[in-house]
Every structure is written in C-alpha cells, then in structure tokens.
C-alpha cells in the first residue's frame, strides 16, 4: 500500500540535496523537489516503490537537462553579462588567498559568491541556506583574514 507521507519523509532530504547539487540554488532545488514529488503523485499507479528514490532523482535531472538543452550558449551565458560588457571584467580572484588555512568551505563560498559573482548578502543567504546574519558574520571573518594576509604581504 502507498503511504505517501512516509515516502515523502523517507526521500525528501536526499532529493533536495541531489537537486541542490545540480542547480546550486536552494530555492530552485525546493521547486525541483516539489515537482518531483508531484510527478510521483501523478504516476503513482505506475511506479514501484522499490524504484525510489532513483525515480525521483531522474525526474529532477531530466528537468534540469531539458531546461539547459533548450537554451543556447548565447542565451544562457553570454546574454547574462551582455548588459554590462562595457564594464571591466573582474581580474580572476586570487585562488591562493582563498586557500588560506584559516578559511573553511563556508567562508570561501561566501567570499567567492560575493566578490567574484557580485552577489548581495541576501542572495548569498538564498543560495546557501544560511541566514543573512550568518553570511555577514562569515564575510567579516573572511575579510579579517584577507586583510591580515595583505598586511603581511606588503610588510614582508
């Protein structure tokens, strides 16, 4: 017998993580997860429970693949920056700075999303699932570290 509530609880976390790994956006991963479970509801008569969660993963992946396939490189990527092509490109952020031993993944992600991708703190919060306050804290800490490195470099 189908116990949809049980099935949902058993798989929602892994489906969400999988979706997140594919799209790098929590709100989009949320949409994809909802869509996968809605698709499961629609096809419940045809799906053997033993095929879960693989079936749900396939739904998620197909949607993402399908979306990207429909768009060309120009639409996807070049168009995004077309409007500010007259502005200077960022110099590649120094990866050596990022790999400082005092920085953890969360600090590096916040640093990169803000200073390489130009996101606001709110956007970083939405992307990472951290609160805006947490993002602010991580950025402050990371900036302190970078400042120390800079001072050391210029004095040494």
């Amino acid at each position: 017998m189908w116990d949809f509530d049980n099935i949902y609880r058993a798989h929602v976390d892994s489906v969400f993580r999988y979706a997140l790994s594919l799209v790098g956006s929590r709100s989009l991963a949320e949409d994809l997860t909802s869509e996968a479970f809605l698709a499961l509801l629609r096809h419940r008569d045809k799906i053997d429970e033993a095929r879960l969660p693989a079936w749900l993963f396939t739904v998620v992946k197909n949607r993402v693949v399908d979306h990207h396939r429909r768009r060309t490189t120009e639409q996807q990527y070049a168009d995004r920056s077309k409007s500010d092509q007259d502005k200077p490109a960022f110099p590649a952020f120094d990866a050596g700075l990022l790999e400082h031993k005092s920085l953890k993944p969360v600090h590096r992600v916040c640093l990169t999303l803000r200073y390489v991708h130009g996101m606001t703190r709110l956007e970083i919060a939405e992307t990472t699932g951290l609160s805006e306050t947490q993002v602010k804290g991580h950025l402050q800490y990371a900036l302190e570290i970078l400042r120390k490195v800079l001072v050391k470099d210029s004095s040494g």
Partner: protein
Amino acid sequence: MAKETDLRWSDLEPEEETLLKELGVPIGGRPVCPPLDLLQAFHSGALSGALRRHIGGHVEHCRVCQILSRDFAAMDVPLTKEEDARIRARVFKAHSGRQQLRRWQFLWLLIPAVAAAVLAVIAIWMHVGRQNHARQLASSAPPPQSLAAGSPVFTLEKPPVALSVPLLMRGRQAYAAALSSALEPYEAGDYSSAVKRLDPLARKYPQRAEALFYLGVSEIFEANYGAAAESLKRASAVARGSLASECRWYLALAELHAGQPANAAATLEILCEAAGVYQKRACAGLKELSSKNKASFSR
C-alpha cells in the same frame, strides 16, 4: 528603476569597499566566472553541446570555480524546516486535492440513473406542455459563444507550474519567491485567489512573463476572457522561448472565448508558422477556424 545588473553590491559596506580597492577588484565589474547554477549543471553532467564546452573550458583553467563547486558541496546545509514546510504545502495540497477528486469520482456512476430520471421528467413535461417547455429552454440557453472555442482542438488544459532556471538567477530571487508563493492558489485550483495574488505581482514586474502568464490563465478559468486576453497579450510580448509559445496558445484560447476569432486566428498563425510544441495544434486550430468561417459565409 535600477537594472538588475546594477543591484550588484547594493549592500556594499565601507570596509569592504576599502579592501576591494586594496585587492584591486573594480567595484561593479563584470564577473568572468560562470554563475553557480551553470557550474553545478556542468559538474553533474546536465549540460550538453556548446554550453558544456564553454563552461568546461573555463572551469578547467579556473581554480576559483573548482574550489567553489567543491566547497559548495562540502557546506551541506540540510533541508531547513521552512523549506520542508513549503515543499510539503505544495505537494500535499495537490495530494489532498486529488484524493477529494477520487472521493467524488463515484458520482459519475450515478450519471445513468440521473439521466434516466431526467428523461422521464422531460417526457412527462413534454407531454404536459410542449410549447411551454420550448420557451423555457430558449430562455435558459447559454449566451452565444464562438463555436470554435468548444472544439476538441481548443480544449482548455491547465498548464502546470513549470520552473525556469534563469528565474533564480542573480537578482531575480525576490521575484521568484513572490511568484512561487502567489502560485499556491493557482496550483490548488483556486483561480479567484490566484488572480488576486498574481495581479499585483504582474503590475510590479511588467517585464516578467511568468506572473502575467499565470494571471491570464487564471482569468480564463475565472471566465474573465477579456482580461485574460489582455494579460496574455502582455505576457506574449515579454516572454521568450517555449514560454512565449505557451503564452500565445492561451492568448488564442482567451480570444476565442472572448468572441474575437479574428484576433485568435492572427495569434494562431504566429504559432503555426514557428516550430514549437503548439505548432500542430495551432495549425489544426487555424484550419478549424477557417472552415467555421466558410460555413458561416455560405449559410
């Protein structure tokens, strides 16, 4: 109003600005690295063709992008309670709606019995007063409507809420979040609430097709065809790609229902000429419309 790209670092603080200057990072410059959604799609094998080569070519040489993907995976922030609640609300609302439908489906079994009873009543009625019956039927007939709108080619199907990856791109999250919340009544089939929620959103974001599209479709379901045609016309003007065809298809339906077959034909012509999921249906619809036209001329 500021353009989306100008929103970058709208929350820049003085000490950050100082450090960026020290690092030599120009403020408000153009990111050279692909956005995170494309990076992740690339790593998970969801990209193909030129896009895959383009992103792959960058990632291969960019240590910053390599580190970002690795670290993003390592962060592993689990599904929050709020996220779970939102997913649950969307999924289970549909689930309970479906169950209610199932519960009411048994009513179909009653149709033959009801039909027999109705026939019996009509037979008696006709016997009692044929003239009177005919007059009553005429007065209760629905208002005249374009015949074509009732054709199987033009069956009204509810378009599911389809996500679009660029919606969640930088700077669009606020719109995406508002849209996703406003679409809850739409998904639940409560079109009158959907119109109320989507209308202000469509006004606030006139350049975004999604809010206008779902507003128009909700208005069709609310039988407000004139308003639907207006919303969908505006949606068609700003929509791109497959959403544009979708907007036009529903625009044609709204126009038909609103008794504007000439407008509907013009809309269908655009769809019929371009390759897309609605091409076949649009061409078939055009044929049907023109045959209706000929029939009414020869009459």
